[in-house]
């Protein structure tokens, strides 16, 4: 597609994408998965462990595990001391967190630091030691985690959850999810709910930690300047003693059909209205046409040239933003926009028209081409971000598929308008959420 550019005299062609960043996948005897992205292109290196659990009653206590782990280990029990050590290691970062992938709950512990070859003194071994200590020799006194740290982290997460209300864009999206997925833990944040947090004891968090170590599917992913064989040996030394991992194959999400569209309106003293619409896509990550679904969602609302931006913002001046988002691990498509509160009806109508336009082929060949090119650009650009490559490799690994960007590139090129239309063939509007202030003299 592209001609050799004089700006890039020696650059390899796109076809050699895989050769540039070969991803190595390996399984330890106890079924711990290892994903490695060895490369000297970067000046930083990283290692991250991901444990996979389920969202549900235990979401909050599971999410508290990484938060408490990074406060200290049995050898370095004081957070102050641990952070001082990390600062001295040229600002090595040791972070714990939680995220959700469909109804799976992912718990992470990540180390990032500058590569030894960039520094006047080596630090990797010491940084890796801190990371593994924090994970494998945590600060558990008796049968519970350090009560003081747990209390602090619980309060901190609780404040964060309460603070979501301050960010209206995020708040509106969560409220839409709550309306659409009542009774489904998918509507929780990856940190659970405030009620769950309050009901959690140090014992329960220690129990959740032991569960993670005993049976959760675990993936260790590393990137940067490394000898892959040596890295695998190191990971085996650190994780080889764990019991055999449980089998937990990917299951496609279930989204029950609803007869009528659910509509939720909320009022607050805001200046800009937030309209969020949830669609059941009828497609998911394991489907053959998942790529077509990504293209369809992008033609609809991923880019400034997408239908939503053009029609809702540029032509009708109704919104500052209007975009679509896809979660294939849940089969959910979300459209969100920030609009003039008085223009809710026309905005919703235009959005529904654009979704229908995708299904019915009401987009130009040029719009499709621009979108495919933009997605290809993203795919290529992703190779510059090791955490993005490893993130995608992880998702694919869950589906039992290898990371092969060159194949994805070819598949993306081959997608035609019928594929895009077909990806939206079963789409159905499920829930509409609208946040606005009450307008004087307007019917409510």
């Amino acid at each position: 597609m592209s001609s050799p550019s004089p700006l890039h005299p020696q650059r390899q062609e796109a076809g050699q994408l895989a050769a540039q960043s070969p991803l190595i996948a390996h399984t330890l005897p106890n079924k711990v998965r290892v994903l490695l992205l060895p490369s000297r292109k970067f000046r930083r290196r990283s290692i991250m462990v991901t444990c996979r659990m389920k969202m549900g009653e235990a979401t909050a206590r599971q999410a508290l595990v990484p938060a408490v782990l990074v406060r200290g280990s049995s050898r370095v029990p004081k957070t102050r001391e641990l952070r001082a050590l990390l600062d001295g290691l040229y600002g090595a970062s040791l972070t714990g967190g939680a995220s959700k992938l469909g109804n799976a709950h992912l718990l992470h512990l990540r180390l990032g630091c500058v590569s030894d070859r960039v520094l006047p003194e080596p630090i990797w071994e010491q940084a890796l030691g801190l990371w593994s200590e924090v994970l494998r020799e945590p600060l558990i006194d008796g049968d519970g985690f350090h009560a003081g740290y747990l209390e602090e982290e619980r309060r901190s997460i609780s404040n964060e959850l309460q603070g979501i209300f301050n960010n209206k864009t995020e708040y509106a999206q969560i409220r839409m999810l709550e309306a659409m997925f009542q009774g489904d833990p998918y509507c929780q944040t990856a940190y659970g709910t405030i009620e769950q947090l309050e009901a959690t004891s140090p014992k329960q968090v220690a129990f959740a930690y032991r569960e993670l170590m005993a049976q959760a599917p675990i993936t260790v992913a590393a990137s940067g300047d490394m000898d892959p064989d040596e890295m695998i040996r190191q990971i085996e030394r650190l994780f080889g003693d764990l019991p055999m991992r449980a089998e937990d194959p990917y299951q496609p999400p279930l989204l029950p059909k609803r007869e009528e569209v659910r509509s939720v309106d909320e009022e607050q003293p805001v200046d800009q209205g937030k309209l969020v619409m949830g669609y059941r896509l009828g497609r998911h990550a394991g489907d053959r046409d998942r790529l077509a679904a990504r293209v369809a969602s992008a033609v609809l609302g991923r880019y400034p040239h997408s239908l939503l931006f053009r029609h809702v913002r540029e032509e009708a001046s109704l919104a500052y933003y209007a975009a679509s988002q896809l979660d294939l691990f849940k089969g959910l498509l979300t459209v969100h926009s920030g609009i003039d509160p008085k223009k809710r009806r026309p905005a919703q109508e235009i959005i529904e028209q654009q979704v229908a336009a995708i299904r019915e082929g009401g987009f130009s060949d040029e719009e499709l081409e621009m979108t495919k090119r933009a997605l290809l650009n993203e795919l290529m650009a992703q190779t510059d971000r090791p955490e993005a490559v490893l993130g995608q490799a992880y998702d694919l690994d869950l589906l039992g598929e290898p990371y092969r960007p060159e194949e994805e590139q070819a598949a993306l090129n081959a997608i035609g308008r019928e594929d895009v239309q077909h990806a939206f063939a079963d789409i159905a509007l499920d829930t509409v959420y609208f946040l606005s202030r009450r307008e004087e003299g307007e019917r409510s």
Partner: protein
Amino acid sequence: MIARRLEELDLHHYESRLDSGLTVSTLVLPQFAKTYAMLGVRYGSMDTRVPAPGASRPIPAGTAHFLEHRLFESTDGNVMDRFAALGASYNAFTDYFQTAYLFSATSEEEACLDHLLTFVQHPHLTAAGVDKERGIIVQELRMYRDMPEHRSWHALLNALYHLHPVRQEIGGSEQSVAEITADLLIACHQAFYRPSNMRLVVVGDVDPKAVVAQAERAFPTPSGPAPAFAPPAEPPTISQERVETTMAVSVPILEIGFKDRDPSTDLGQETATGLMAEALFGESSDLYLELHRQGLITDGFGAQSFTGPGFGLVAVGGETIDPERLEGELWRGIETIRKNGLDHTRVDRLRRRQIGQFWGLFDRPEALAHAWLGMAFQGQDLFELPDLLESITVTAVDERLTLLDPAQAAVSVVRDAS
């Protein structure tokens, strides 16, 4: 030695000033798929006057930002369509001191760069286009009005400064954007979008000579100087000790800002200020850990130093469930440190931490380009940082504690309307 040189790591950066006055900066990142380019104009919300026949005339707040929005319509058609056809991602932003246009591409880089260098020179500014944009910009301003951090920050700047245009919102207000006309945008474009007032920054696996040659073709001739920024005669004192904003929030916000009596954009001084703030308020500080222990802060808590021509400040704060208690604890912590001085071994560790962060930039072309361009417009050189961090004395960092003078402080609080 704690920092190595760029050359030792086989990293090379180039800078040249063309005959037209345009400065071209290139950093080669071998093996990167992406080329990231920014064309910056030294024109932001702080520029409040434009030359007019005879004298100069005032510009309504938000004009630089409005012009940035409208530049995506050029005489050659829609600018975004062209980038989209080339498969590039593209964006623009305006801040206090600069406007920047940028793209990221993994193919067709030469065509993208040509487009970037051309479209900013050929805007299509019409009354109809300006009217349509106003509706979009008003929506953007309303979105910011609903953001508590944004409101707190803006209120803090207004409390610290009497006259300096850093007080103005970058996007202006609904009233000020109502005054903006196509003629005004044309006048501002002519005055500020001159090669001598612009910088091109390109980061990626590129040939620096080819970049320069392309920029020379796009900007062949000089077009005279642009209006210089003249800071007003801002008094050294603060304007207001305390400002409160009420809006719909579940968690209040508290920020304390300290106004520098003698502001300077000297990189050495700013580095010292940054280290001082990190030592006092950073995640590994005693104060941070104590505030976290008491449940008074969230992850967003932190300190930042912010300087530019004619202003300089350090702000600390974030979301908190109890602004009064947080404020009390902050004052107590500041007083203790001002009395006892900083822990020297800690400053030394933070120096290493910042060197690590500097090297991290080279894995993130966007962050690197943004830092390079923004600093260059302040007369600072990003690549001096390793040397500076290596050589800065603890005494110099300690001295910056004088900045945290209660007489120079203003407090901004955002709380719930109900």
